[in-house]
């Protein structure tokens, strides 16, 4: 058994929440630069330039790149030989989020009750935490500060097996077209295919944690990712929906086995503020 102190998790999570909001990943900034080289719409170029400048200001002044500092979503790989000393992993992460968001002047964007809209007492929590137990004694925490605008335009559909690849593609492209400017394009599009109702949504979210440019290791899925990206960029929505080539910076697909009668598909949109951080303990 390897023991990991509760407070070390709190501290590290607090720090990663701030880093996620101040420092856009290199993969995303590089994707902006690449897109800028290819973008043919003048207004699209202006937007991409502003996105690069915005990321620079956020990083040098240490202020959030976007005022929606998001819901904190975590995917945790917890080695089964780990023991959290002094508390449990869920509390440690939530405490880290409260600390990180409060001390970092990040926004408290959670309401306690979805219908009455009463605001939660605890700063920007509860976080959404998915734990995957794995072998070994390591603890890896992946975090995303997930914006509401793009989350709101995400979709899930229980399709028919006979809809096939063509039907799935159509549904995904419709989601992107319908989202238009609302989801703050250029987007990173995360797709989950298979599993069941809740599982495909999780797969779509999980796919967004892969860095931009990382293809699926299944050749047919990697090819589908590229195919979809090309078709999305051919829609002409462009940066901020003002017209242009760059609608999607990347497309990610995760698949899993499913029931003989089912073809679940979830499309989780991420805006250009694709904020992901990872720590290993």
């Amino acid at each position, binding site marked *: 058994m390897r023991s990991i102190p509760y407070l070390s998790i709190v501290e590290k999570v607090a720090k990663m929440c701030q880093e996620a909001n101040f420092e856009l990943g290199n993969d995303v900034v590089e994707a902006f630069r690449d897109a800028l080289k290819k973008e*043919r*719409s003048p*207004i*699209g170029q202006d*937007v991409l330039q*502003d*996105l690069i*400048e*915005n*990321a620079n*200001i*956020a990083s040098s*002044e240490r*202020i*959030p*790149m*976007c*005022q*929606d*500092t998001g819901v904190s979503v975590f995917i945790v790989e917890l080695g089964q030989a780990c023991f959290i000393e002094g508390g449990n992993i869920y509390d440690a992460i939530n405490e880290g989020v409260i600390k990180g968001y409060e001390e970092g*002047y*990040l*926004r*408290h*964007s959670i309401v306690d009750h979805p219908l009455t*809209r009463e605001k939660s007492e605890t700063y920007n929590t509860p976080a959404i935490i998915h734990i995957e137990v794995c072998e070994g004694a390591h603890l890896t925490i992946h975090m995303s500060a997930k*914006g*509401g*605008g793009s989350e*709101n335009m995400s979709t899930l559909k229980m399709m028919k097996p006979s809809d096939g690849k063509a039907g799935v593609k159509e549904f995904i492209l419709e989601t992107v077209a319908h989202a*238009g*400017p*609302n989801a*703050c394009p250029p987007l990173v599009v995360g797709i989950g295919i298979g599993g069941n109702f809740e599982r495909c949504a999780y797969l779509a979210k999980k796919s967004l944690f892969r860095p931009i440019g990382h293809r699926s290791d299944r050749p047919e899925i990697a090819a589908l990712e590229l195919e979809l990206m090309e078709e999305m960029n051919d*829609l*002409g*929505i*462009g940066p*901020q*929906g*003002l*017209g*242009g*080539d760059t609608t999607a910076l990347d497309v990610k697909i995760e698949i899993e086995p499913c029931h003989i009668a089912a073809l679940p598909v979830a499309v989780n949109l991420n*805006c*250009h*503020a694709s904020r992901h951080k990872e720590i290993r303990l």
Partner: protein
Amino acid sequence: MLISGTIFTARDAAHKRMFEAVEKGEDLPFDIKDQFIYYVGPTPAMPWMVIGSAGPTTSSRMDKYTPTLLDMGLKGMIGKGYRSEEVVASIVKNKAVYLAAIGGTGALISRTIKEMEVVAYKELGPEAIYKLTVEDFPATVIIDSQGSDWYSIGKTIFNDTKNKEKTQS
């Protein structure tokens, strides 16, 4: 275009309260005649800053309330994303305008905000109504007083040019 002058902030919760005030026949917390509302819920300002990160939020969530405010003299809104048909019609009827700022550039936009003063509903925190003094605040006209919608025009113009290039090459 670049905006300089005074704008007021309001998002979901403040809109709901203003709407309820109107329904009860009460006065709004500020005179909205000829004013602009910016849909934003900024991050808390760091002690050395006027305002935190302050980019636009999705406008469509305010669609339900907007025609009423336009009828009361509101001149324009700044946000991001589509508006409903009712809002577009009301913009035309009231000769108003809808502008978009670049979603997700809160750090960049906050530099153009020079003063911030709370006007109403302070307890709503980032969702309260603030009066902002802005200088060269960047925005794009999306829906003008004729009802033209730049989101569809921009896309059409771009796709037409692209297709022309394709057929020429």
